[in-house]
């Protein structure tokens, strides 16, 4: 047999390349250029960007899961037949940053693609002692793998159970909203791959308007059960940078009904816990360093 060379080859994403450009003002543009060479979306630093995931038009193709892994080099999550409808990755975690839930109901099959919420008040970021987690110029929450020391504080802090430490390297991983793509003027890989535009990417304020319009339309069409999740700035995390249109209660999709930033009471806690906590952090870091 002739050698193949393909078995060990790293495949690229295979997605159509975007045209992108950066002008003098630091404005990044992305998207397909139209005839006049004008892009239809711009990505500006200092503006808040978000995902609106409209589960009412999700077809469960999992292109988002795969595109995310391809772009970000996320490892596979094991090969387990879970017998939970068509979901065999289970939940968000260090090795699954987009996760499509399948919920079988009487005569209905709900599908929704979950992701890190990029919270307004992000507990993961609040508790991160190293500064590995930070808020970007696009108002997203990103963990920097070269700074993360694997203390794992962020893991229980996240009210959504999103961020997780990876077994193989001990560090915390989660969705970055494709920070590198945004900086390069391209929309995140999942939104780019989604064939039905169930995942929409854009400025948060615009997406909120679009979501409201979609909700109104569905209600007018008699889809009473449609509701938005995470879009309200008044919720327990100050609104999310990744919000959803759902067709049932959040619990049905594995989402907490009333998420509260776990560090809400932190200022008070600090006052009475004082240095004890600091000692604990020191101990955790020391033990991590020893392991290395």
């Amino acid at each position, binding site marked *: 047999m002739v050698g193949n060379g393909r078995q060990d080859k790293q495949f690229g994403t295979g997605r159509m390349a975007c045209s992108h450009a950066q002008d003098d003002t630091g404005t990044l543009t992305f998207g397909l250029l139209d005839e006049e060479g004008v892009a239809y979306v711009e990505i500006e630093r200092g503006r808040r960007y978000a995902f609106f995931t409209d589960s009412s038009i999700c077809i469960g193709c999992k292109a988002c899961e795969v595109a995310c892994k391809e772009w970000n080099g996320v490892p*596979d999550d094991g*090969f387990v037949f879970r017998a939970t409808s068509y979901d065999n990755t289970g939940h968000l975690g260090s090795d699954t940053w987009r996760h499509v839930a399948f919920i079988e109901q009487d005569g209905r099959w709900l599908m929704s693609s979950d992701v890190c919420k990029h919270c307004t008040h992000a507990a993961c970021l609040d508790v991160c002692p190293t500064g590995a987690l930070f808020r970007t110029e696009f108002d997203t929450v990103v963990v920097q793998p070269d700074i993360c020391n694997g203390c794992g504080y962020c893991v229980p802090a996240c009210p959504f159970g999103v961020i997780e430490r990876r077994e193989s390297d001990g560090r915390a991983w989660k969705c970055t909203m494709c920070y590198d793509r945004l900086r390069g003027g391209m929309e995140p890989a999942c939104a780019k791959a989604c064939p039905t535009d169930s995942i929409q990417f854009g400025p948060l304020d615009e997406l909120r308007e679009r979501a409201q319009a979609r909700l109104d339309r569905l209600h007018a069409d008699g889809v009473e059960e449609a509701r938005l999740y995470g879009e309200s700035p008044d919720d327990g995390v100050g609104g999310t940078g990744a919000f959803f249109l759902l067709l049932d209660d959040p619990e049905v999709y594995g989402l907490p009904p009333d998420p509260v930033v776990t560090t809400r009471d932190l200022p008070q806690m600090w006052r009475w816990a004082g240095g004890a906590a600091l000692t604990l952090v020191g101990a955790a870091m020391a033990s991590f360093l020893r392991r290395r």
Partner: protein
Amino acid sequence: MAECHPVGFQWVMEARLRGVKVFHIDPRFSRTSAAVDRYLPIRAGSDIVLLGALINYVLSNELYFREYVLAYTNAATLVSERFRDTEDLDGLFSGFDPGTRRYDTGSWAYEGDEDARTDEMREGSGVHAEAAGSDSYGARGAGASARPPTDPTLRHPRCVFQILKRHFARYTPEMVQELCGISPEEFAELAEAITANSGRERTTAWVYSVGWTQHSVGVQYIRAASILQLLLGNIGRPGGGILALRGHASIQGSTDIPTLFNLLPGYIAMPHAHRHDDLADYLRREGGDTGYWGNRRAYLVSLLKAWWGDAATEDNDFCFDYLPRLTGDHGHYTTVMGQIDGTVKGYFVVGENPAVGSSNGKAQRLGLANLDWLVVRDLTVVETASFWKDAPELETGELRTQDIATEVFFLPAASHVEKEGTFTNTQRLLQWREKALEPPGECRSDLWFYYHLGKLIRQRLGDDEVDRPAKELTWDYPEHGEIREPSAEAVLREINGTGPDGRALSSYQELRPDGSTTCGCWIYCGVYADEVNQAARRRPGSAQSWVAPEWGWAWPANRRTLYNRASADPEGRPWSERKAYVWWDAEKGEWTGHDVPDFDKHKAPGYEPPEGARAEGALAGTDPFIMQSDGKGWLYVPSGLADGPLPTHYEPHESPVLNTLYGRQANPARRLYDRPENPYNPPGSAQFPYVFTTSRVTEHHTAGGMSRTLPYLSELQPAPFCEVSPRLAAEVGLVNGGWATIVTSRAAAEMRVLVTDRVRPLRVQGQLIEQVVIPYHWGYGGGGVVTGDVANDLLAIVLDPNVYIQESKAGTCAVLPGRRPRGRALLDLIEEYRHG
């Protein structure tokens, strides 16, 4: 569609956002069912009952588009006195020979046409059916009279319209309930929706995929849909049509420029050794002289000139003798039987994995093991290449590696991003793609492989007469790059063809029968018009009309909707403003509109053909179906099909249900392979009480060669599984997430269990029929990240008689809890079920 064509399904979702109502009719509740307005579960293999009942509903409630039907279909045409319908013969048409199980189709002809052709020449009959001749009528109108007698009042008892009415009268909503498991209320909702949404102002589209084709009556499924759409006026008009979703990228391309044994490029029939002695003989016997196939000499001679260049002359019949000849059925399954019998010694398998993807995998592997040599070209070492070391027959002792003498050559192939060329999609749209990467290692494109193989072979040829066809081939494409890749654009230009001046032609209407033009595939003529690769055009939809004629190139002549003359009324005016598409501009004396008119540009609506006219000249200004010899949409097929002029419900070869419509249980003309390697489950057997249907899931690609090797896809669906209803799970003792063993007379395969309410038992003939849904992507090895038993091993080989496609969408099986036995015990289990 959402399951297998998620990218295309975005347009269905968009249509829904605009208020289109979408039905999904499928035995299986899939991702598509979840995303539509109405899902109707149906028993696998019963679709002609449903479609027949819709036809009956349209006819008996007078809901057909009368003007369209009268002007554009053969509804008024009179059929021979000798014709007998299934109504008269209890499920048989006239002309059936029980000995050969074939039809003599003479009596199906139009009145006056019965004796125009002898049996041996008649399309559909005898020798013709033996070599899948019917398949070549995909586009090629079978021979029939251009001006048969008609009754425009549609009252004559032998006119097609009346025959249709009688034939479908027994297809009632009650029958739909009894055989399909669809309630009269559900049927009424569907029937009302499609009829309310058809006519002057509106159109309805039907979309199907292999769920319709992979049956022993597959061709007649599509025929039934054609009748319905013609009656409702939904062909040749925007938003109408019957849209086939192909199973793989560029499958449309691989029938246009075929990898099929019975066709030459452009649906020209492959010559037969005993029917076609020379070119004149071939042209006389293949196809009709009226309609566009009347120009078939120009198409074929131009093809021969493209292939043999200067060597092809008038004096040597343009090298017609160089073409290979058929001697019978050289289809996939007959070839495999030939391997087992030792008459087929060598085998090229290119981009396919028949050891996993074809029916009766064991027969496939027994065939592979009995070859002298095997060439497999694929992205990875698929099971078809690795069978000698990991086939399941090794474990049962049916094969031993040391006894397998097959010499296997695995040649790694370049993927679609590693080569340039075109994809032709189901809309007949050719889209050019660039090469993004050099192929790694020794991976090469198919074009590279065949071109350089051809060069090597030609170097070794001598002066022997038999070598001349290969020696004289035009085989001189420019090569480029380090690996000497032949120019795909040069091939595309050869396919397009050139005129006497050597310049690229712009339309098939320029092709000449005298050898002054060349063309590698007449329907693709124009793809390189003006010396420009028209398939590479990418003007965005936002920058052109809604028909988007400047995105890629559609055959023929860049027409986006076929037979679009039918979008205008007989006088050439749009049926309605809303559905205007092409129309007659009387002032300019030409057809015009949003699309390229599929009609002679200057043929006025009032044109009447003179006596003795040929080709397109024989069709009137009101005949939109220009490939048919009479220019009409055929509600009734007088010639060309092997199993009947009208769709008729027959049960699948393996079915737990009795055909209560006729005394005939299964398609009398179906192709059987009654051999030890291919045992059938006995009809009505209590041993095999459940229906199973094979399917695909989004996460994998066909036989898995492109997906099981990739961790990101494999983790999403890591194991073979079956979907069963909670009722069946309880009956058999299956546990969600546990194991089941599915048994047929061919094989026993183990798989994981998904118990789901999405699978519903259907009440058919008073009893509940359970259907098991089995995705077929997994195999025993092939370098897969995930492996498992081969679902297609369960299937029997039984074929549609027109196109020889296997019945893989409906079979019967037994279901056992737990994993299957290993080794000999596995064979014992199958034996026990087969004879028990």
